[in-house]
Every structure is written in structure tokens, then in C-alpha cells.
């Protein structure tokens, strides 16, 4: 049965492909040509629009570039400062890590649970799906800042509800002890994209797998854990990797809600927001570039770790 599911997360499937027309055009060129033609647009974009600018920024990270004057090389000064004397680097990294660790798993669990519910043949499905996606449609629109304040300030909706139970809540959004949680709630509220990807993944599970299982008289719980979940692991893996990277790079929620300040007391100062302040607020683009490359390294370590772990839990049905 499902031995065609070669959906391997991680590295591309290393498997003899018979697609290249070897018989007609012998030689390496002919073997590689079709693939490189397919990749041509990507190559142009990658070298021209991504790698080029990225290398420029790597160069800038060794300079004192201030946006307005030509950069001067300063060696490792920027990196040395990050490593030794930058409290904001540490505090913003803590904020970001906390945000990643809290928001990503919760968002994924939420998205998967809703996707499972919405994958059933019940009435009004498209409507529910659309409703659950609506918050994500709002993105980081200007209106979010007002909505969140209405929900979470001292006489906001949340406190009005708590008050019914005799609890007097703090001003969540402007209290440094809680403000980060309101951003985590925002991230979870906008669980639409992983939900859609889970739905598409669920749709790809071959129906005959379920038929076979039900003939064996397996219970629903058993079917979920023995079939749905394992077959969904490539998609779970994809969502986890992408959401983690996105959470590390999160910028707009904090920017919109705190008006770019990261306040109160830097409690919502995400790493990228700090980077942005340094680069565009204080004209230290060289330093900001160094901060960015540190972030790239940190994300890369996390991603590499997930790809390594993938071989233990992502289902390779081969």
C-alpha cells in the first residue's frame, strides 16, 4: 500500500530517477540540463535578488555603515560588541526565544486540532474554515493595534469578563510582566496558515489506508495514532520548521502593537525589532547587519537540529 509516499522531509529523496532522457543525449550536460532549466528562474532570483544583497549585508556587518556615508571596515568590532557588551542583544534574544517556544507549539496544536475537526464531512465546513481563517486575513493591519488594546487594556474586554468572576485583571498589554503574552495570543489567534497546510496534508492521505484499517476493526483513536498522525508527520515537520523560522523573524506584531518601541521596558522588543531600531532608528546599519547574521546562525542551528531530529520522528514510508 502506501509505499509511494515518499514525502520525506529533510534532504531530497536520493533515489534513481529515470526521468532524464539518458538514452537520447548521453553525457552529464544532457542529464542535468532539464533540471537546471526548471531551476532557471530560481537561479536568477537566488543569485540576483537574494545571494547578492545577502553578501553585501555580510560585508556591511564588518563595517560601520551608517546609511548616509560610505562604510569603513571595522573588522570584528560589531561581533565583539554583540558577544561582550550588549545587554539589549541578550534581552531581545530572550524575548524572541520565549515567543518562539510558547507560540509555535501552541499554534501548531491549535491548527492541527481545528484542521482535524474541519476535515470531517460535517455541514457548513467551508464556512467554518473561512471563519477560522479570518483572523489571519487581518495580518498585521493597522487595526490590530486598536483591537488588541480594546481587548487587553485595563478596562478591556478580557478584564470585563474576568470582573464577572470577581477578578480584577491588570492592564495586560501595557504591563511588562504580561505584554509579551498578548503577542503570543495574537500569534495563536492567527493560526490560519498552518491550518490550511494541515488540511491539504490530510487530504493527501490515501483513502485506502483508512479502509484497510477499518476492516481490521481498529478504533478511531487507534486509526489517528497509527495512520493519520504518522502519515501527517512530513506536514507537521514542514509547519514546525516554517513556523519556528517565522517566529524568530517576527517583526510586525510587535512593531504595530508597540508603535515600534518594543515597550513597556523592552518587554516586547523582539530581536528583529531591535535590529530595525539599530539600523533605521540609530543609523547603525553595520551593527544591524551583524545582528542579522547572528540571527541567521541561530535559526540555522535550530533548523539543522530539526532536520536531524526528523529522521527519528518524521515518517519515511519506504
Amino acid at each position, binding site marked *: 500500500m502506501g509505499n509511494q509516499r515518499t514525502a520525506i522531509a529533510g534532504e531530497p529523496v536520493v533515489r534513481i530517477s529515470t526521468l532524464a532522457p539518458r538514452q537520447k543525449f548521453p553525457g552529464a550536460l544532457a542529464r542535468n540540463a532539464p533540471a537546471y532549466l526548471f531551476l532557471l528562474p530560481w537561479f536568477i532570483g537566488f543569485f540576483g535578488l537574494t545571494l547578492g544583497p545577502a553578501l553585501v549585508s555580510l560585508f556591511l556587518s564588518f563595517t560601520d555603515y551608517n546609511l*548616509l556615508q560610505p562604510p569603513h571596515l571595522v573588522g570584528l568590532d560589531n561581533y565583539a560588541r554583540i558577544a561582550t557588551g550588549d545587554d539589549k542583544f541578550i534581552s531581545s534574544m530572550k524575548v524572541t526565544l520565549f515567543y518562539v517556544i510558547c507560540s509555535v507549539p501552541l499554534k501548531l496544536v491549535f491548527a492541527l486540532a481545528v484542521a482535524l475537526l474541519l476535515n470531517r464531512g460535517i455541514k457548513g465546513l467551508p464556512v467554518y474554515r473561512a471563519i477560522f481563517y479570518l483572523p489571519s486575513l487581518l495580518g498585521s493591519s493597522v487595526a490590530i493595534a486598536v483591537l488588541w488594546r480594546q481587548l487587553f487594556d*485595563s478596562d478591556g474586554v478580557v478584564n470585563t469578563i474576568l470582573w464577572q468572576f470577581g477578578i480584577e485583571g*491588570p492592564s495586560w498589554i501595557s504591563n*511588562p510582566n504580561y505584554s509579551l503574552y498578548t503577542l503570543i495570543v495574537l500569534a495563536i489567534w492567527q493560526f490560519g496558515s498552518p491550518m490550511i497546510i494541515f488540511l491539504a496534508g490530510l487530504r493527501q492521505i490515501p483513502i485506502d489506508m483508512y479502509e484497510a484499517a477499518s476492516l481490521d476493526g481498529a478504533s478511531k483513536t487507534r486509526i489517528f495514532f497509527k495512520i493519520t498522525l504518522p502519515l501527517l508527520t512530513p506536514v507537521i515537520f514542514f509547519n514546525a520548521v516554517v513556523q519556528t523560522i517565522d517566529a524568530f523573524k517576527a517583526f510586525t506584531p510587535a512593531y504595530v502593537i508597540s508603535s515600534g*518601541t518594543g*515597550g513597556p*521596558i523592552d518587554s516586547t522588543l523582539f530581536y528583529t525589532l531591535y535590529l530595525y531600531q539599530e539600523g*533605521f*532608528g540609530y543609523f547603525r546599519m553595520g551593527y544591524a547587519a551583524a545582528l542579522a547574521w547572528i540571527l541567521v546562525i541561530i535559526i540555522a542551528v535550530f533548523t539543522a537540529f530539526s532536520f536531524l531530529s526528523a529522521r527519528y520522528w518524521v515518517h519515511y514510508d519506504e
Partner: protein
Amino acid sequence: MTFTIDRRQFLIGTATTLALGAASLNRASAATSIRFLWWGSKERADRTHNAMTLYQSKNPDVSIEGESFGWDNYWTRLATQAAGGNAPDLIQMDYRYIFEYARRGALLDFTPYLDKSLKISDFGQANIDSGKVDGKLYGVNLGVNSSAVMVNTIAWKEAGVDAPTNGTTWDDFAETCAKLTKAKKRRSFYGTADASGLEPAFEGWLRQRGKALYTNDGNLAFDAKDTAGWFDYWSKLREMEACVPADMQALDQQTIETSMISQGKATISFAHSNQFVGYQAINKEKLGMISYPVPADDAKPGQYLKPSMLMSVSATSKNADAAVAFVNFLVEDPDGAKALGVERGVPASEKIRNELTPDLDDLGKEMADYIQMLTPKVGTLPPPPPNGAGENGFFLKKVAEEVAFGKLSTDEGGAKFAEQAAANLKRG
């Protein structure tokens, strides 16, 4: 159903884009064309567009393209364009940023134009100097301005307490504000906003005590004890419930619309005089404007007149002459100046001021009166802020919040601010 894109649609799409692109490029290359970028409200945009239209009807060979943004996005955009060597010819500058841009060579020195195409000698030396950086003129004063205290007069009447007036001492200020809170006429409503994190307020307090933010040679002109004293004052107000609690003040993002007075949380907010129009526009109740509170006796002047904003020309402008001529039109030509009105502050030119005064509406008059009342009492312009000063402004807000939320004592807060502020200057 299959998802295919036929080639024709794609071609049409691409053609549309290219056409749109070409159209906007063409427009830009007509005649002597200059670009003007500013931040501000719709009111300001309308007035500025009027001035531009007037100028273009007088000078048909010049075309001016104007664009406006909100404060935050304005600076990102300006920085990106300047970095790309594509800065707009005409730049509305803020007093806080002019040093950053001028010292990095991004702005045109107006000195050669003085008394030629830029006839601003009737500004008075102080108002001309306010656009100077390191001896060269990089900005032309668009409006005279000073710090000010906005007061919700209705709320004070309602509570039956006499509102603070010009010359109220800091101690009386605290007492009356506490009285207003005690009157409890409205739900969670306080006497004043907490200004401990507001740099201009701190600066005023320092200057009244013979200190300042920065010395002439770019070092700190205050110490940890001064800062601690400032934090002490506000901690006392917080205790007396004269000012809003910390978690309320933290909602104030130092903009008009998030200020405590506009949010209906307090009767008083610390601001700038040219913002009076903006504050009144979104506050239904009648506002008044008074000067900063003063120390008990023998106070030195804390406030000073500074440009609400300045006009600068980009150093890379290809049409610098035309741009300078337009700047002159805005500040010295009665037509241009009338179009702008006092929305950017009271004009620096005496001639223009006299011409505008009869036509001013009530708000404009109040603003002009305030500046007139203040003028004999103000001190001199402080020395130019050194590089890194901008960061200190934001840092004061952070430390003040740490004190307000009880994470630092006032002494610890004072020490932390003084120490880190000095370090920021060193880094530049």
C-alpha cells in the same frame, strides 16, 4: 477544474505592470521637477498641497511632487531613500534628526544662499541659529515652538478644582493634580499624565536647576542625582495618585492620539505648543495650554524656543536652486506662508507673523499668544545634541518605566540612566 495560466493573460499582466511603471517614470521627468517629503496630518497635507499649487502657478517651469507619511514610516522611508542616493529634494526635518543627517553629509548647506534666494534675515538670529549644525545652516525654521502643558479645562471645572496656570510650582502642581484625582468625577481618571519618561520635560526640569542635558563639548550636563531627583518627584505623584499609574502611562506611545489626555485618562499631558491644534482636534472638550511648572523660587528659565520642524534640502539634489527658492516661498512669501498658516507652528519671520495674525482662528491665536507670553521668559537654545542623544531620549522612557513599575528604585534608576546615557554618547 485545472489551474492553468494561459500565456495571453500573463502577457497582458506583464504589459500592465510595465505600462504602470513607465507612466509614473514619465511624470517624474517633466520640467524642473523636485520632490517634497513631509510627515503629518491631512490638515497639513491639504495646506502643503495648496502652497505647492500656488507656487507652480507662479513658476510654471517647476513641478513639485509631494508625499506625506506618518512619523514612524516617514523616517524609515527617508533613511532608505537617502541610503540609495535617492533622497527627496525637499525634506521636512525634525530638530532631533537634523544633527544626524547633517553631520553625515546628507543635507545641503544653505549658507551660500543666505540673503540671495533665501532672505530670512528677519527671522532674528536665534531662529536662524536653530537650523545650524556645527556652524553651518542646514535647516530653515518652519515654525516657532516650545514645550507646553495641555490642560483639559472642562474636567477641572467639573471637579471644582482650580487648574494649574502659568507659573504654578512643581509642588503645587502635584497637590492640585492629587485633588483632581480625589474628586473622582470620572472612572479611573487622574490629574496628570506621568511625564517622567518624557525627555523634553526632564530637560526643562534640569534647565530650571541650572543644568542641561548636554554640555557644549557633547558630554552629559547632569548626573545620577539629578535624574534620581526627577524620578523621585514623579514617584511621589504616583503615590499621591496625582498622576496615572504605571500600566496606564505605558499605553502612551508619545503620540497625540495615545496621550493620556486624548485617551480620557488624565486632565493633563506634556507636549509641544504646535501640537495644540492636533490635540484639540481629537479632544472634544476645550483644552488650554500653559507653560511647564517651575521650582519654588529663583528659577532659571527651563523652556526655550525651538523650531517645530525645519525645511532642509538634500545634499544630492540636482535642482537645489529651485528647491531653495521654494523654501523661501514657504517662509517669506505671504502667499506661501498664508497657505501653510500656523499649522506647523508660529512663523519665525516677523513680517509674516504680522501679516498672518489678523486672519488666525481661535486656536491659532491661542498658539501665537502662548509663544508671545513665553518669549520674554525663555532661555537660550541648548547646545546641539551629540550623536547618540536620540537613543537617550528613548532610553529615558525605558528607565522611567522600570522605576514606575517598581523594578528599580529611584536612585538605581538615576544611576542607570546617567551611566548608560554616557555610554550611548561614547558610542555615537
